[in-house]
């Protein structure tokens, strides 16, 4: 018996979005093609602190991304997790990205360090990065903390987006010596209301049913696809928060770059939805077009 996820999508989507997401009857998932432009919003450069990873050298990573069909990758730095010389971290990131036109630098920021606003100014101001990435679980603060609201306000004032690493690794497999809790996203609802121009993306979340409800209730926040698992995980996420709030991301090289890409095909979403997730939403997010709130 044939089963089509598009039926599931069609039954739940709002009318406007459904036309974007649902595949037409003649459009079988396996025949959907990669868009000519694909933006991976979640890549990291340099070495993972806890083991060597097959693609942790920049040339190898870029070669793999090109092989898959990724034309633009928003790259931050694994060094941002544990290093305290954040200016040095972001200088190396910037230099690496300048040598690879497909890489877009996203500076790492640790707001628990003294004078962190200087780092944001360097990233979003002088270096003209489009956004910053933060790691609350590793840096020991929560989104309810005042320092996060200051960071979000500062980044917004400078016109940049903020990527929040929900985690970098499943809490069950982290090093015993360095554990980092998942980030609680719920305080974001307040800050997104307080700062209406803020642009926030959550990275590396494997959303549970309750997580999806939480994200649906937070205005404008977008998610990446890197850990959205389950054979219909992408479809249920799209149904929960809207297709315009889901951006392609792989969390490469920590995760195998092909994994997130195959899941797009596996999801059975339409070519229009593939374009939205893999290209258009990232462009709109970066260029300040605020996504709609589905619920």
């Amino acid at each position, binding site marked *: 018996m044939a089963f089509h996820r598009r039926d599931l999508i069609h039954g739940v989507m709002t009318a406007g979005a459904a036309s974007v997401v649902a595949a037409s009857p003649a459009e079988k998932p396996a025949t959907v093609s990669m868009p000519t432009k694909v933006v991976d919003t979640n890549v990291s450069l340099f070495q993972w602190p806890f083991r060597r990873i097959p693609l942790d050298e920049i040339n190898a990573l870029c070669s793999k991304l090109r092989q898959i069909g990724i034309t633009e990758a928003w790259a931050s730095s694994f060094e941002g997790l544990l290093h305290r010389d954040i200016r040095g971290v972001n200088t190396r990131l910037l230099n690496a990205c300048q040598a690879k036109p497909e890489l877009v630098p996203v500076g790492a920021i640790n707001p628990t360090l003294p004078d962190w606003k200087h780092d944001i100014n360097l990233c979003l101001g002088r270096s003209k990065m489009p956004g910053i990435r933060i790691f609350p679980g590793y840096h020991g603060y929560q989104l309810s903390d005042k320092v996060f609201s200051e960071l979000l306000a500062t980044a917004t004032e400078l016109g940049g987006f903020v990527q929040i690493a929900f985690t970098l690794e499943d809490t069950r497999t*982290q090093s015993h010596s360095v554990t980092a809790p998942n980030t609680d996203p719920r305080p974001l609802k307040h800050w997104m209301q307080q700062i209406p121009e803020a642009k926030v993306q959550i990275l590396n979340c494997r959303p549970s049913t309750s997580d999806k409800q939480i994200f649906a209730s937070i205005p404008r926040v977008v998610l990446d696809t890197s850990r959205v698992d389950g054979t219909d995980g992408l479809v249920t996420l799209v149904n929960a928060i809207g297709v315009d709030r889901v951006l392609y991301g792989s969390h490469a090289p920590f995760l195998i770059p092909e*994994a997130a890409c195959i899941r797009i*095909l596996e999801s059975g979403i339409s070519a229009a939805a593939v374009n939205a997730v893999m290209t258009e939403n990232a462009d709109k997010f970066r260029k300040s077009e605020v996504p709609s709130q589905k619920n």
Partner: protein
Amino acid sequence: MNFGLPSAETLQQYRIWDSYFTPSFSHPGPDGSRGLIDDIQRSMPAVQLGQFEKLCYFAHVGIGTTTDPTLEQLLQAKPELVLKPLQHWPNKLLGMIQLNLNNIAASMTALDRWLQDGPMLGVYFPGSGPGAANCMTPNVSKLVDRVSELGGVIMQHTWLKTGGKRSPQESTPSELATLASRHPHQHFICAHAGGEWEQGIRAVRETPNVLIETSGFDATAGFIEMATRELGSKRIVFGSHLPSRSLGTEISKVTSASISEKDKKDILGRNYRKLLNVIQSYK
């Protein structure tokens, strides 16, 4: 390659046999099969996209492996319900039974009924739920001995979690290696390679009758390369964990790994077929 997935022809050449298919894993539905069949159907687009030849699921057979006493009674009264998925997909599905490690007598009876006299090919030792017990529990060896007599495969759920076990019933790869060393002629599959595979691989490395299974954790890069280096490709079997995990997460671990095409064929199907040959030759 499209979206990072090898071509259909390449996937067919791999002859993929999925050792860890988990539709409706904790409960097959109140009528004994509907939820299971729905979940299998839900998985079929991915199964077809991945060009899987066979998938093995783990049936509840009414010996107390669920928390639903009504279902347990139903499966005891109508054992034909257990066979419905196999009848629905006779050329696609393989079956093993979930054992109740806390009820050895019922499990021994089930082995006779479903492995010796029925179509099932092996057993699953659960890591959670009412049928779970740590694999070092003394009575477990009785079950292992009987499965060995029948030529069956043993799939043991394992995880090695940062911060320690969430329950004493869970088993780690190290514990499975200890059990396996006591039964050197029986093959064991270490499901999920312990999750935290860098330690899981090391834990079973010196126990040659333990193979690792590949599913159930994120598509962390480097896993298959380390496993192939430390264990050899002959000691790794592919699992999909569909539908709660995804084709992309699970198949990319193998198809994207920097290993030979021969090693990929070993992992994706050849090794598992070899394990199943023993009991199939007895039937």
